[in-house]
């Protein structure tokens, strides 16, 4: 069991900063439950980014502990009982800082990879 756990935790660490930002970004358009968040990230990334459940739920609980999201049990449109996560005001502020940081990193990396000044998005 032990090695498995470490594999998961490594993955969380690899994705940590980015995954948190992606989740916060997804919640910007309204409260969502875990499954919808994973679908949304997958869909919006054009099926490129698969969010592992082993990373998603720990991340959600971590974000909640930090006060960036709150959760509430509600009915879904298909009448299922699900836990919805909602962005808090501090979460919104966090999203803004993370976006700014992300843009700086992307620009910096783009500057290295593609010296000619062009519009470079990941």
């Amino acid at each position, binding site marked *: 069991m032990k090695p498995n756990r470490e594999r998961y935790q490594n993955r969380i660490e690899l994705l940590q900063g980015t995954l948190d930002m992606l989740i916060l970004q997804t919640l910007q358009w309204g409260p969502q439950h875990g499954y919808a968040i994973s679908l949304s990230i997958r869909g919006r990334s054009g099926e490129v980014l698969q969010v592992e459940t082993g990373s998603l739920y*720990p991340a959600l*609980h971590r974000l909640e502990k930090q006060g960036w999201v709150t959760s509430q049990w509600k009915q879904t449109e298909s009448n*299922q009982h699900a836990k919805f996560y909602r962005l808090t005001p501090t979460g919104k502020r966090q999203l803004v800082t993370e976006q700014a940081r992300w843009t700086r990193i992307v620009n910096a990396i783009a500057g290295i990879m593609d010296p000619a000044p062009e519009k470079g998005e990941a």
Partner: protein
Amino acid sequence: MSLWDWVFHRRQREEERDEEVQTHLRMAAQERMEQGETAEQARASALREFGNVTLVKEVTRDMWGFRWIEILLQDLRYGARMLAKNPGFTAVAILTLALGIGANTAIFSVVNGVLLRPLPYPRPDKIVCVNLVWKGGGVNDTLTVPEYEFYRDHASAFEAIAGFRGGPDLSIKRGGALEWIHSLRVSDGFFRVLGTAPALGRGILREETVPGSAQSVVLSDSLWRKAFGADPAVVGQQVEMGDASYTVVGVMPPYFTFVEQPADAFVPLQLGRSIVDTGMNTRVIARLKPETSLAQAQANISVVFEQLRRVGSVQSGQQGLQLVSYQKWLAGDLRPSLLMLFGAVALLLLIACANVASLMMARANARRREISIRLALGAEPSRLLQQFLAESLLIALLGGSAGLLAAAWVLRALLSSIPWDIPATTHIGLDGSVLAFTLLVALGTSLAFGFTSYWQTSRLDPNAALKEGSTQGGRSTTRSRTRSALVIGEVALSLMLLVGAGLLIEGLYLLHQERLGFDPQHVYTMTTPFAPAARVTAGQVWNFEQQTLERFRAVPGVTSAAVVTLPPLMGPNNIPTQQEGHPRAQHRRHGVPGDQSPVFPDDAHSHPAGPRIPRD
């Protein structure tokens, strides 16, 4: 999440988390069914996609924090189950430890009460006892009144100095009944030496120590409450005690007690120059000035002693004065015996530890398979160590609690049978520091066991152990070496204790065989609180004692009865006892009866079972 939340909402959070995961799986399966998979297929692929459900749950829970408490609780639960599964081992281990820890706790309570806890006065380290040293090396802890006065007037090292002497037991009338109270004769400065001022009124004044001045009294708080209903107006009033009348001048605060000789009433020590007051019968204590060290004070008092010698008031055999810390003096001879006893019980605890450790080793051996499997499954050594520590912690805490119970019981027996003279109101009991001591000992032992067990199993090669199966053999050399070391240590320690105990018993036996010159069996003593006051003549005392003896002799079963001022082997100076009127009896010092404890003869028959007077 706060610790509070964690404690009270953990269950609920776990349920919610489980439901959250289930919802996820349901939704994923439903979507696949909508894409045309069968219900079973859909559920299977949803599960596959999700991954290790238990692990996801665990990792999610780790995010809540307080993971270490979870692990600790888990380990403790597991440890408790293991202990419950081996009741024999558990009982033996706990009882062994209870013995060791109990003995240590009991002795530590005494050590704590007598040696460690400071006296209940401010700056107790500044209080000293003034003793006289003889040239032969003997030490007197009593001085004469003129000596005390000389030191009081000439020594500069003291903030206060006081003499005191046990006073008579006085009767006091309370609600129609007579009650006996203990009195202490103290000089002025007594309460200043002890750093405690009366709560009401004042202490004893110098004028009141002049012979013939009016009698005053300072009451203890308990006497003030018992006999005077805690009435503040009692200060200044006359009270009858014994057959005299005293003016109440002060009341001590409730927390004050005179440790050396607890008393209900403090009356002035009247410093006469009669033959009684020039006897060495006054104890002297002093408080050093705050900035004066013991060595400086000693130097000062030695100079003063030489002055006294020049005046000519020093017997030739006297070497000088010695200042001793009052606390140390109170502990007296108890100190080495207590420390020795403490060492002995520490050894006992070591033996108990060694016993339990070897028990645990035997059990760890039986658990090799379990541990090998856990190691093979990827358990980290540190996690195993935690597990062992949790288990030994449980044993040690249980052993410690049982030990505490044992100590409470042993202590009662110990205190009632203790042959030494323990300062009367020294508080010996299981207080906070004793509890802390026991806890510390228990934690120490648990660490020791935990590490031995771990150290032993951590060198396990899971492969070999599993292949070996249940057979014992192969790689057991290190284990047997450890076990041998334990056994050797145990035998050595036991031998030490045994020799010590043997010597002690030998000493006791010799003491028992010592010829006292009389047969102490069936002899009982009692004291009559007969206050010698000015109004009572010697003849009256004689008559009273004769009548008392007559009545005692009339009691069935009493073969003889006698009166003595100091029974043989009692009292501070071990005065030789002689039969009155015996041709060889001689009055040594001043030729004063009372100086040598004359014995009033019983009714002249020599009873075979009665105390025989030693031939001098």
